[in-house]
């Protein structure tokens, strides 16, 4: 058995497979099928300081090898999270990552400050949600915007800070460098690509929000390219996500430079996908005679 453990900015993960935010709720739902301890870590449902209702339905549309969603950060707010959700995760044998979003720089800061006093192990700053009017991706698509949020949050954040980037930009590596410069401890990418579907019978967008975020295997090649570009430009650890459905995808992502990976939409097709990815990685490492998963990180050799 090879060593699957990885370390992200001081936090130990028993394996590099993390549940992607928004696809795993607050960690309880899939427990009816397998224990949350299967994951090296779980990135919890994106949360805001105040409760949010989210967008009206339909919030999902199917696409070739993918899906669009427009949930819009529905969440009970940080206090409800701390009083109800987080205690339920006590003793869960996995790294707990709080995904934090806001509509203004201040709202990001107060939220992260509050989370800093909690038992979460790490904070993932969501500056890339495509489904909310203010904030979200608005900050994530410019170096200045991204830097300003990270700068403000860094001051009050006592936990390792990971920043999740939007792929809907011209130069994602520049944004990665900007947030690194402001003190991000890690970078995760990609959030969803902005997409749309239309119901030709009603001549209406399928999503009530008109547009939504594209995820699933369809986006994997774009995610892999961006992870490769970012990993070559920053020193902090990179967490790769976007369309990973098989263990081979996870290996590609790590060879491209990801220290860990997140699995999201793949669970909707196959709820056991994360289990299979961990097992597949293990078996492949043994077959290859590689004793430590960390040895493959960033090993892709460009032509």
């Amino acid at each position: 058995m090879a060593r699957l453990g990885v370390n992200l900015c001081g936090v130990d993960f028993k394996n590099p497979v993390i549940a992607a935010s928004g696809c795993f709720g607050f960690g309880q739902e899939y427990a009816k099928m397998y224990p949350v301890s299967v994951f090296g870590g779980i990135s919890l449902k994106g949360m805001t300081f105040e409760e949010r209702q989210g967008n009206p339905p339909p919030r999902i549309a199917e696409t070739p090898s993918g899906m669009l969603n427009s949930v819009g950060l529905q969440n009970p707010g940080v206090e409800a999270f701390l009083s109800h959700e987080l205690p339920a995760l006590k003793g869960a044998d996995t790294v707990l990552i709080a995904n934090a979003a806001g509509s203004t720089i201040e709202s990001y800061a107060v939220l992260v400050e509050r989370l800093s006093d909690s038992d979460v192990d790490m904070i993932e700053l969501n500056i890339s949600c495509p489904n909310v009017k203010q904030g979200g991706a608005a900050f994530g698509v410019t170096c200045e915007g991204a830097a300003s949020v990270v700068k403000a949050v860094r001051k009050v954040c006592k936990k390792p800070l990971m920043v999740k980037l939007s792929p809907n930009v011209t130069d994602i590596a520049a944004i990665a460098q900007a947030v690194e410069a402001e003190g991000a401890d890690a970078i995760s990418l990609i959030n969803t690509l902005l997409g749309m579907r239309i119901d030709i019978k009603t001549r209406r967008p399928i999503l009530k929000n008109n547009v939504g975020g594209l995820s699933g295997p369809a986006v994997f090649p774009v995610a892999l390219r961006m992870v490769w570009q970012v990993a070559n430009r920053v020193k902090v650890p990179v967490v790769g996500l976007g369309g990973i459905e098989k263990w081979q995808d996870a290996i590609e992502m790590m060879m491209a430079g990801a220290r860990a990976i997140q699995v999201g939409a793949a669970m909707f097709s196959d709820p056991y996908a994360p289990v299979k990815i961990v097992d597949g990685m293990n078996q492949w490492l043994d077959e290859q005679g590689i004793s430590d998963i960390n040895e493959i990180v960033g090993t892709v050799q460009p032509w």
Partner: protein
Amino acid sequence: MEPSVFQGSYPVVRKTACAKQTFDFVIHCPDIAKMAQAGQFVHVKAVGFTLRRPISICQINPEKGNIRIVMEVRGDGTAQIAQTPEGGMLDVMGPLGHGFQLLEPTESAVVVGGGIGVPPMLETASHYGENATAILGFRSASAAILEEDFQRAGCQVVLCTDDGTKGRKGFVTQALKEHLEQSKPSIIYACGPLPMLKGVAALAKEYGVRCQVSMEERMGCGVGACLVCACKTKRPDGQEGFSHVCKNGPVFEAEEVVF
């Protein structure tokens, strides 16, 4: 914690076409059948599609380890599922969601089903047997399904078609109103098109009868993790918010739902 939801490839032990574009599958999935309850659903994978299709459970046979689903072809995905032959395998996940709350079988119940909303009512109707009245609505005779099954379950069946080609002409709500004029059941269960549910809920309120409705919405994970299948509901505190069909539902108390 023992698994209570399962996913796997299960054999189709019986498949019949019961109406135009409507197929009746009996699937051998002992672990799912053992846990399943009336009104719950299974999440079925269509080969070549990203998202599973939620399909209500029509009948449960834990002894034989079988469940029965009756599904309608609505698009490419359901068409793909419908192609699965008898003897073939289906990728099924379940049981999922909260089902109908069943009272003592001695209580009287009315189950109201419209179109493809009829199958989910069979297991519940069977629970009450002769104490159940099943009001089943279809577009026309050609779309009518499961009438014999409800009769075999012992309940009085009132079959309605929009065009009057079978049973009585008109909507199930009219038949329900007439029924409630005659007698007051302990509970009403309903599944079908939104306007129908809305009408049934209104009648239940008018006649002061408890009512549970099975809701539908475009769905993702099926377990309450992705929050896409939102349904507007009233909370105990009276405030409105989005509940989720896959986790809080598909069955809700009618008075909770904001139609």
